[in-house]
């Protein structure tokens, strides 16, 4: 009888300790550094080596769009705010430059023939 009571007491003690532990241990966790979409995208950029691709892009189209910084352009494309104005200005500049060039060539040949 006394032995059973001692076992029961031990059980009650263990259960009460467990209840105390469960009550006092915090059931939530706080992240120290939140992982955002930008962090994921930046890590993907690094792993794919986008920097080298952007260098190549700059090399190929430097004649037409010399003003465009492709790193910034990529960031704006990710956020969905593409700067169309710079592109339009670049194309208009080329049209203007080429038109003036054509007129100069025609004038040069005209003057050459007039002189000869």
């Amino acid at each position, binding site marked *: 009888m006394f032995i059973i009571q001692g076992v029961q007491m031990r059980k009650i003690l263990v259960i009460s300790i467990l209840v105390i532990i469960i009550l006092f241990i915090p059931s939530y966790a706080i992240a120290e550094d939140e992982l955002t*979409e930008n962090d994921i995208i930046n890590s993907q*950029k690094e792993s794919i080596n986008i920097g080298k691709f952007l260098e190549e892009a700059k090399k190929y*189209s430097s*004649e037409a769009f010399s003003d465009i910084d492709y790193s910034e352009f*990529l960031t704006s494309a990710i956020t969905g705010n593409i700067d169309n104005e710079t592109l339009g200005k670049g194309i208009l500049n*080329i049209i203007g430059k*080429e038109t003036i060039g*054509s007129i100069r060539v025609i004038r040069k040949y005209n003057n050459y023939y007039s002189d000869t």
Partner: protein
Amino acid sequence: MIHSILKSISEGLENKSISQVAYYVQYILIVTLIMSNFADIINMVKDSINNLVGFCNTLIPILITLIMTTGSVISANLLQPILLFIITFIGNLITNVILPIVLVSTALGIVSKIATHVQLDRLTKFFNSSVVWILGVVLTLFVSLLSIEGSLSSSVDGITAKTTKAAVSSFIPVVGKILGDAVDTVIGCASILKNAVGIVGIVVIIGICITPIIKLALLMGTYYIGAALCQPIADEKIVKLLEQMGDTFKVLLAILCSVSVLFIVGTTLVMKISNSGLMYR
């Protein structure tokens, strides 16, 4: 104009053979001037095509890697060989077949304008129209092949990814759903990056092509205007020669425009194919 003045002077000469020789010398002088300009333009078109192919060979592996990151493994495996083959094929076809045809056609056109008896106008027209037909067929084949292959593989990719996500969410206890959501976030970010890289690629393709296209359009306009202005005063052969050069520049413009449109459409389709796979989620 100068040719017409000289022609009227030489016609005043009594000796017909001298006047004819003088006429041909003038004609050859004009042809030489036009040809020096034409050689520069041909080199410019060749350089642009080579730059386009070179850049697309850089762009496609990055896009394919990003497509794989979005989980579209079958699409990536199917598209990469097709794309790389077609891009290289088109580059070689234009540089080694189409541009020489244009050169031959131009030479025949110039010769047929000099000679009175030998007429090769029909052959020139045949070469020009065959260039346009070849380009049209290649463009249609490329777009249709890419669309069909892409639409089939993207459906398979979408369903596979959805099944995998459902299995992970159901069978992994406690963290299964969190894991599925985390994978979805990473895939979504990869998709955003892929679309952004595709847009940068399209802008660079435009940047490579825009200068030669504008240059060719202006030259074509200049030659047609020149022919129209010279018609009342100049010899008919000179007017036809200027028109012939305008037609040649038109064909070169068509080549460059169709290739740039082909690469832009190709890049857009690659972006779109993997996006449609994501729709199944």
